[in-house]
């Protein structure tokens, strides 16, 4: 935590090394979040790229009130939501949820990633985006409901109900898979 504060302090003074270290620390987590939310690796990479470029542009005036992980996760979630809205409104049905899309990057890496993250991503793909977002931010990124509510600009009750309904939906999906 102290190390992170020092890195942010150095980044604010224009240190590219500090920025690189922050990038290395959070890039994989943030990419995982974006992939889970968008289920499209190339879109997810674009989101993470944009978030880091935008963050880099704040050097000299960046003010951190919470944790950097929480801040960057929120940025990725917000950017992913924008992408999700703006991308063609294709129906993400059961068939489409079979695989994670990828238009770029290393194919081998893609296969490894798909195997590691595929199961949950597929299941979460069948849950409403808003519910998926809350579940992932809470369970994977250790954000409290209050933090999520503030980050997404919604009430804490809405966050909790989205979380509850999302988990319920997930359970129903899993049960249906078992009984098939």
């Amino acid at each position: 935590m102290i190390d992170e504060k020092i890195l942010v302090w150095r980044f604010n003074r224009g240190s590219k090394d500090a920025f690189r270290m922050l990038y290395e620390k959070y890039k994989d987590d943030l990419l995982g979040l974006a992939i889970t939310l968008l289920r499209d690796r190339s879109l997810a990479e674009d989101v993470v790229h944009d978030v880091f470029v935008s963050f880099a542009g704040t050097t000299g005036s960046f003010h951190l009130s919470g944790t950097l992980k929480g801040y960057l996760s929120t940025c990725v979630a917000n950017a992913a939501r924008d992408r999700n809205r703006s991308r063609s409104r294709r129906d993400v049905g059961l068939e489409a949820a079979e695989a994670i899309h990828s238009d770029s990057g290393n194919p081998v890496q893609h296969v490894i990633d798909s195997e590691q993250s595929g199961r949950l991503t597929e299941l979460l793909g069948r849950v409403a985006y808003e519910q998926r977002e809350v579940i992932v931010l809470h369970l994977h990124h250790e954000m409290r409901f209050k933090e999520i509510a503030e980050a997404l600009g919604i009430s804490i009750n809405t966050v909790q109900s989205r979380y509850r309904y999302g988990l319920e939906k997930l359970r129903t999906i899993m049960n249906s898979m078992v009984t098939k």
Partner: protein
Amino acid sequence: MKPAKNIEEFVRLEKPHVTTGGEMDERTLTDSFAAMDETLRAGKPNAAGIILRSKMAKLAAAAVILVAAGLLMDYRNPPVQPPPRTVGTAKSPAEMLTMISLNIAYRRGGIEAVDEQTSKAFEMLGSQSATVSIHELLAESNGV
């Protein structure tokens, strides 16, 4: 374990472990460094801006400004002092004409105060013959 807890545990355990590719890293870092350079070139944010981001700093700055304004006002319009008393404190003409009493009067109001005190002392003594000595005058007035 409750079903909801099971699901939570499953989601936690199944957190995707993906890694970014070298191409993405290079692209992101290159563009980020360019953004940093651009921000730094555009000009460093001024120090006051950085300092005043904290609430405590804002309060402290406001307090300093208020104190400075108060001191400036005080310096420009000093509080009106009562005029120095030029009337001597000595009661009798003899006391009013002693060196100590005249010295005090001088320090309080300058030569005008000395003149005023001596005039008052002589008024109290009234008109006398020119031949009478000071000692006699004072002895007559004070009963000494």
